[in-house]
């Protein structure tokens, strides 16, 4: 956890926190929209392999899947932007 007068908090920690937080926010909205349209129990019944899932478990699993997807996209974007900026800063 950053803070507490700890001067070792780096901009890398900050990047990780921002990536995690931005994707968390997006995942929350995506979860709300997705499960408003689809019932996780019905989805589990329609799965191509046997799935036994209660609703609360379904919502939680769905939320974390969305978070993971958003996290990957967010981290990938940051990686691309940072590597671009770093190569631009490198002396010719």
């Amino acid at each position: 956890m950053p803070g507490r007068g700890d001067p070792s908090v780096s901009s890398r920690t900050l990047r990780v926190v921002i990536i995690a937080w931005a994707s968390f926010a997006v995942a929350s909205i995506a979860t709300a929209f997705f499960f408003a349209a689809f019932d996780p129990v019905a989805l589990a019944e329609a799965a191509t392999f046997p799935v036994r899932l209660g609703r609360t478990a379904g919502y939680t699993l769905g939320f974390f899947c969305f978070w993971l997807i958003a996290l990957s996209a967010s981290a990938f974007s940051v990686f691309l932007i940072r590597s671009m900026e770093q190569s631009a800063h490198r002396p010719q």
Partner: protein
Amino acid sequence: MKNVAKPKKYRATEDSGASMYVAHEKIHAREISGRFQTLRKLAVFVLLGLYYFLPWLNWNGRQAVLFDLPERQFHVFGLTFWPQDFFFLALLLIIAALSLFFFTALAGRLWCGYACPQTVWTEVFVWMERLAEGKRNQRVRLDAGPWNREKILRKTAKHGMWVLFALWTGFTFVGYFTPIETLGLRLLDFNLGPWEAFWIFFYGFATWGNAGFLREQVCMYMCPYARFQSAMFDSNTLIIAYDTERGEPRGLRRKAVPDVATREKLFASIKVEHNAPAEAKLDFPPPEALGDCVDCNLCVQVCPVGIDIRDGLQYECIACAACIDACDSVMDKMGYPRGLIRYDTQNGMEKKPSRILRPRTLIYGALLLALMGAWVAGVTLRQPVAMDVLRDRNALYRVVNDNVENVYTLKIMNKGNAGQRYRLSVEGIDAELVVEREAATRPGEVLSLPVRIQAGLGTVAGGGHDIAFVLETEDGARIVEKSRFFAPGEMQ
């Protein structure tokens, strides 16, 4: 302790090349009381009171506010919302965003200072910190000092309170989604479901981290609103501002020195009466040599985000008005008029008239009213039942025993709180409606009802006919859905 200028709180890290981030040091905000801090405390009590109390309130024998995810229905007092009503939730979010714009244009960052959960919970965590670790100077000393018995005890007490409060917060949060009374009983029984336990800890952990540790960093690095709120500002927006003209040049002084306005009058009257240089007669510095700011730095010490408001408006400022209260208390002690730091508009600071009614507020306000009206109308005029008609995709018609038959599936949705039975009929054609099973629904059920329309082969003309299904409930609601009926042409 002498009031000395606080050292710069932020310093750049080594890799300042690509980063705007500066290493963080804990801000020990000094406690202050005053008009606006009383208002903020009131906001904390009302908002957190609502948050912790609402799930325990019952309404018609059911938890009044319950977003029952396991049952897929939201109860808000007498109203019940189904997943099909998601539109209303989306509209509600848009209304919330728009009111944020409206109030920002009107009065700046009211949201940040008084209502944002981050601010409100931080406030409570800071109270607990104060309770365990004492006032600002004691806290600074404690943090700098060695880990002795007292430090361990005080820190343990603080974290104990924080953890308990955070867990209670997490428990309340889950109580909005699953009935809180049975949740509480199961908690006492140590019999929580794994996911309930998980979300209690998850939300509790988020509260603990955000309000206990991250605090103003959430506003500075994580909050999108803090970044774009300036787009809603104009020169008529209420901001917290330091009156530079009145305050500068700042400086320490004897207590007997009157404020700038009084000194201006004194110096002017002496000039008029005696036609002599004022400084010769008066023992005070002239107004242009010393402003009203006594440079006590109290406004800096009370700031929870650690800025100096005298440097002008900064995006870190969450408009908590602690500096106003601090400055007012000093002005009172000096016998100066209040308001050296105050809520004012940019126009007001420049002594120009401020306007509340202006295109920006009028447009935001009108949009807001229209959307709120639409929401209320939509919710009150909601039909308790909805119907969709799907034609059988496989065949336009089939011929059975001298009858031509079309097959449909009706999707009937019961959005009310009680079971319903329906009467179905068809209009626009002289034919018989054959309903496959009983048309009745439980609350919240979506019924898939296969129906057939049969007409004698000779009695309907070939080609397509416009028809309508009519659904009537026992309590008198009537829903009409159009469809088509096809019959074979003359040649057959």
